């Protein structure tokens, strides 16, 4: 496996210089691996992991998970409709899943009304969308590997021990 991809998968925040030290590579080699990952469209970009349930961030955004049932099409299955839905700026994440519905869509908006408007006016009116079920997100407990209510301190070790 690409050694830089391996480090990225571990989810730590390392600079190019730090990645070079950890992987035992020259910085130029790390940059080459990064370039390859971008070229292969594996590495697409960085996003911060934010806990928006904190009071200080309360106004930032409203999120909803939407179960969407759609009609599959000949010669394309779900792809055309899924890609079409994905293009909306309000759509943060869109994935095809097995089970009782087809697409799980995460929508982000600045207010409840805006999200509701998007679902009722934009999403559910697309031809081929059979139904939607909207779940407003109340609270995250874990996001992308981060525990959001984590009060464990890694610094509980004694500084010197035998």
């Amino acid at each position, binding site marked *: 496996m690409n050694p830089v991809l391996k480090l990225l998968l571990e989810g730590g925040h390392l600079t190019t210089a730090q990645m070079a*030290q950890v992987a035992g590579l020259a910085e130029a080699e790390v940059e080459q691996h990064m370039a390859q990952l971008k070229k292969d469209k594996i590495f697409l970009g960085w996003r911060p992991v934010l806990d928006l349930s904190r009071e200080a961030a309360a106004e930032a955004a409203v999120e909803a998970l939407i179960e969407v049932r759609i009609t599959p099409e000949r010669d394309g299955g779900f792809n055309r409709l899924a890609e079409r839905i994905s293009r909306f700026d309000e759509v943060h994440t869109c994935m095809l899943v097995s089970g009782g519905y087809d697409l799980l869509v995460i929508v982000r908006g600045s207010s409840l009304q805006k999200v509701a408007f998007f679902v009722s006016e934009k999403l559910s009116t697309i031809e081929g969308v059979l139904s939607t079920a909207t779940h407003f997100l109340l609270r995250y407990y874990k996001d992308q590997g981060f525990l959001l209510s984590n009060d464990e301190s890694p610094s509980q070790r004694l*500084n*010197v021990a035998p």
Partner: protein
Amino acid sequence: MQDNPSKWVAGHVASLPKSGIRDFFELVAKMKGQDVISLGVGEPDFTTPWHIREAAIYALEKGRTYYTSNLGTPELRKEISRYVTNEFGVDYRPDDQIIVTVGVSEGLDLAFRAFLNPGDKVMYHQPCYVSYHPSIALAHGEGIPVPTYAKDNFALTAEALEEAWQPGAKVLMLNLPCNPTGGTCSREQLEKIAAFARAKDLLVLSDEIYSELTFEGEHISIAALPGMAERTIFLHGFSKAFAMTGWRIGYACGPAPLVDAMMKVHQYSMMCASIIAQDAAVEALRNGADGVAHMREQYHRRRDLVIRRFNEMGLTCHSPRGSFYAFPNVAGVGMTEGEFSVGLLEKEKVAVVPGTAFGPGGRNHVRACFATGYEDLITACDRMERFIGQTGKS
């Protein structure tokens, strides 16, 4: 009060030297709140994997709050037996050849108290874990330190054993991979040590707590060599491989009459290990292999990083095949181990332990534990390099 209360302290306790690591601990404690990066720890930076912690919570929910058999719960001994057979290639019966202890430390104490008559001699390699010599003394034994050398990457050699041997030697104490040196022995070296033990009719106590953290080649237990299981107490535990230091849970395996003797001491002093820790240990052995492999991989990468950086900055350091300790020589940069440790702490806020805390053989060396996250390790190395550049004499 006229009298000195110290008069009640037993002579062999009063004469025990204070742990060398203690002074350094005090020094570091004084710098609290000053952004100190400590490479002075002796435990993993990982918290115990959640599935193991969850098993302990489940044990409490089920009301598992009682004493267990002195030897430990049958489930845990069964799991230990299976694990030791698979990982070390030695078979121990759960019923009478395994005892669960409060960490390897208790296992060691039990062994010394069960097997030493006053004045019996114990050979142990040095630099070594700080408690070996005091534990021998507390059991009224006499320690014979056997030096290991940087030129051998701190492997114990049969030649050094031959040279140090004295009449009255009864026990040989091994700790491979070794804290603090990271020293290990090859199969050939271990076979020679085994032959020496057989020739001198020694009982071997083998503390293999770092065995899962072996990065290259396989770890070989001396108990697995021909003719050795019958004269070896295999000591192991969960602290390092499963990141369970605070649980205080370990075990000892050996010939039934020897385990029975250790059990006698254990039943009258400790009774049993905590049942909650025992239940967690069962979960660790059943489902913990992936977690161990993940942590080992992380330590491996960190080892490569610090060893490369140490050597680049002028500290001679062998690459330890096991454990999470680097044991670099600081003489090359013109400092003693004390000057280096204290200077580095005061000037650059990085704590490493002077090698002499682990015996006189640790002169000119410091112990740096690499069980710390990458960012801190890299920063610590940068600070160390700056310290050497400003203070060192090459």
